[in-house]
């Protein structure tokens, strides 16, 4: 199972706990993880990436295995530690506002 940590507001929106565990088929990438996430929790569609283009929303970033992978291709395989669930994929909101 792939583990994902979402920002506070998205956890509330989808009524999730601290982490969500997802069964991801095929190559584990940001795209396939988000496909699985949105399939299980359709209310999250459009909140992390745009509906049609699947473009990442600009104030969100993805972290995997200590690296900011936001600018990597969404279909690029994620590190093994993410794929085997030993650590989570982090969806992080930018610190902004006041």
């Amino acid at each position, binding site marked *: 199972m792939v583990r994902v940590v979402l920002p506070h507001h998205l956890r509330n929106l989808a009524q999730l706990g601290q982490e969500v565990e997802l069964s991801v088929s095929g190559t584990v990438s940001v795209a396939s993880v988000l496909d699985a996430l949105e399939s299980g929790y359709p*209310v999250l*569609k459009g909140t992390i990436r745009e509906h049609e283009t699947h473009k990442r929303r600009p104030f*969100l970033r993805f972290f995997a295995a200590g690296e900011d992978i936001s600018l990597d291709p969404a279909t690029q395989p994620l590190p093994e530690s993410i794929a085997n669930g030993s650590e989570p994929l982090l969806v992080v909101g930018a610190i902004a506002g006041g």
Partner: protein
Amino acid sequence: MSRVRVLVGTKKGAFVCTADGQRKDWNIEGPFFGGWEIYHVKGSTVDPNRIYASQSSGWFGQIIQRSDDGGKTWSPPGSSEEDLKSTDGFPKGESNKFVYEGVAGTHLWYDGTPHPWEFKRVWHLEPSLSDPDTVFAGVEDAAMFKSQDGGKTWSELSGLRLHTTGKDWQPGAGGMCLHTILIDPKAPDRMWVAISAAGCFRTDDGGVTWKPTNKGLVSNFMPNPEAEVGHCVHRIALHPSRPDTLFMQKHWDVMRSDDAGDSWREVSGNLPTDFGFPIDVHAHEPETVYVVPIKSDSEHYVPEGKMRVYRSRTGGNEWEALTNGLPQQDCYSNVLRDAMAVDTLDDCGVYFGTTGGQVYVSPDGGDHWSPIGEHFPSVLSVEVQTLK
């Protein structure tokens, strides 16, 4: 006994305030959707328990919320378990899918260069006057969407955005937003919208085709102050019994039309300043109008530190300050365009919310005011439902 339910949208959540017909003692529930910007909350007049809310954030985009029990509980339309388990192709997770029809094209950016049309948020939700499942959405970048399934799915009424002038529309300081939708209660296919900073538009065929209705508006910031489009209309309002008469608060100038928007004339009269955002009409007196003047386009707060609602009982030109119960010193709030409403009780109640977080009510048409709450987050919108 009649009751009222006040729906407050703020920068950090929504609140539902209820009182009996005296409108003196208030029960406040919320925040709902805490931490999110709630641009607008509005109930259906057909089914008052059906309420729609626009929830958005710069991080996570747009969410539509719906309540079917008068604001007690909420959920994004189409996200109930039975909806999601359906196998008949029922749309899933599309209540926040606002996609422009066809190739979106460009409008003008602040610097006059072409800029792609990009959906940002829903500013205004206007439920149909006849069907609780039908609701219109005014969005940024300016366009109008319609849902006929209670907000589960949305389709654009693209005739507006694709109007021949659309490519020339430019955003105002708050973005290029379609912020006002008025439906003619006598002829529901006739609607008006207002866009900052394109102007006012009318459809007579349910939103298929639109025409600019800005004749008589003068905006000195434009190269041609009397151009067909480009006016920063802040708000328009009508009285249900006389839909041919419209009132407008423009960037500067308070305006009036008596021919359904075909032509406008200024009725700013003796206002201390004719810059402001909201405008509304008394529920039982079609010539009684309310505005809240603020100092200027670069100083978005009330003049002289005094919160004053101005009322005209003559359809404009002659205005009186309403101050009883409102702060008259050291007040530097503003009232945004969607943050004023009137109820329909025999003694018409008037409501407004401020950027300083106060929501006020006058149960007697503006003569006396008192706070419903004084410590809300900055108020973006106020609507009221009159419940029998």
